[in-house]
């Protein structure tokens, strides 16, 4: 009841959010083959190349007191990577195109939809794309025996949270930049460092203190660390979860405000 009241206050109806989300989902469905392949292929390529390339050198490593093969170590991180790329790029490029080139937002706002409904539909859609990618990669790594199937099921809410967080970051980028090329700035300042530093290919404890502190704060680190829960959780895991939820809400709010400003001045 309370939630319904708050939503009404924001001029948000579940139907409005759903119908915007459904529009984006339908466009995705129309070109599903093109859309399905890259999110799965990219991390699988990383998995194969880094897996084959580094396993002879690394062999096994110790993580949370357990000895695991290198592939078992990087497997769950690939879920995080697929999630990051798909949710962020959908939020950033997808939303920027719909705001500035296709003017889909302007069209949607001629329908009986509020700004918040269009925003939430867009945000949920970016999160959905991230979740689809995370899930597909998860199925691949479960298939090759690098992650237990029940762990993937249990991790689904976490994957969706990651989708919301990285999708929110993408939407914020779309709201801030003036030209599409400027999206490269957050990509190189944020996405690439996360991709390389955040415990994806090596434990962040290997990093020197300053870099380690930076990597710990970047949200992909807690995400990957939590996705590796079948190998053991760090003592600070509740804090990591709170950090991810807090950051997700902050990104959502900032993106909402920024796009509102872009559209309405």
């Amino acid at each position, binding site marked *: 009841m309370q939630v319904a009241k708050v939503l009404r206050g924001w001029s948000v109806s579940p*139907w409005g959010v759903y119908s915007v989300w*459904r529009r984006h989902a339908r466009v995705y469905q129309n070109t599903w083959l093109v859309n399905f392949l890259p999110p799965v292929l990219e991390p699988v390529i990383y998995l194969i190349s880094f897996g084959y390339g580094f396993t002879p050198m690394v062999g096994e490593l110790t993580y949370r007191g357990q000895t695991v093969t290198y592939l078992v170590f990087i497997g769950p991180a690939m879920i995080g990577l697929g999630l990051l790329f798909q949710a962020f790029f959908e939020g950033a490029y997808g939303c920027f195109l719909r705001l500035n080139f296709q003017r889909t937002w302007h*069209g*949607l*706002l001629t*329908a*009986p939809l*509020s700004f918040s409904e269009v925003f939430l539909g867009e945000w949920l859609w970016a999160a959905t794309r991230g979740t689809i990618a995370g899930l597909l990669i998860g199925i691949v790594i479960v298939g090759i025996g690098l992650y237990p199937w029940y762990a993937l099921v249990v991790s689904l809410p976490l994957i969706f949270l990651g989708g919301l967080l990285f999708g929110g970051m993408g939407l914020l980028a779309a709201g801030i930049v003036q030209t599409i090329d400027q999206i490269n700035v957050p990509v190189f300042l944020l996405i690439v460092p996360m991709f390389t530093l955040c415990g994806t290919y090596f434990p962040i404890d290997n990093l020197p203190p300053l870099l380690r502190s930076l990597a710990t704060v970047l949200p992909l680190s807690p995400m990957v660390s939590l996705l590796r829960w079948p190998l053991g959780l760090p003592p600070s895991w509740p804090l990591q979860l709170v950090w991810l939820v807090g950051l997700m809400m902050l990104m959502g709010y900032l993106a909402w405000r920024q796009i509102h400003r872009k559209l*309405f*001045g």
Partner: protein
Amino acid sequence: MQLVARSISKHYGDREVVRGIDLGLSPGQVLGLLGPNGAGKSTTVGMLYGMVIPSRGAVHLGPWNVQTQGRQARHHMGIVTQDDNLDPDFDVLENLIYFARHYRLTGLTARRRAAEVLEQVGLTGREKSRIEELSGGLKRRLVLARALLNQPRMVFLDEPTTGLDPDARQDFWKLVSQLRAAGCGILLTTHYMDEAERLCDHLLLLQQGKVVDQGTPLELIERTVGHEVVEVEGVATEWLKDLAARAGVWSRPFSSGYLLVLPAAQPQALLAQIEQEQPSRLSRRRANLEDVFLKLTGTSL
């Protein structure tokens, strides 16, 4: 259900784009906003349907405040924006079906309604066409079809015929007349005088964000200019200016010649005087909105 705007203004920083416009629109009426580029027409329309937040003033559609209850108000509105924002990823039918969902029209109901509006705008048979295959005129018709999905009470047409060829414009005008006959209130912005004169029951003339005059097209023409004008070429401007002053009629340079209003009493006498000067061109015609604009604003559209 009436659309009422009370002293709406909009400024961006120091720049005031719309300054205190009042208007009312009733069902079955076509209200035109007429003005040159940059007069504030689109900003005003944006405020009327909720895409632009007024700096001052408020807009109501029936019981709803468009700014705070935009969702409810837009349930009864159909909006054709100036730019085409059709979905390039969808074909014609999908564009309608996925838009119908925003009005909670789904499944068979949505398909039936989509077929009806396609027929209404003459696009039956083009259901499977891609958007990029449509000409400018057909795209406009599809945007109109999309706006009509929920049987709106108020229809907003923001420069709907800009860039269309004469045939497509005629077709669009026919659709507007049909909508009016069906009881829709229509708000039309245009910078085509013939369009405004032909379609609108009431006109607001805008310049620099303000209403400079308003009335029916005929009233505006008769009140501001008169009944007839004459365009003259090949006669000394000074002489014509003198002639107009003596006759007590308005005149001004126009295109490559000069424009004079013919007095209601004895227009022939004035014409005869001009003819004696052997002009290279002399054309007598009915006064129109273009002349009204020239007189009121000193600028042509």
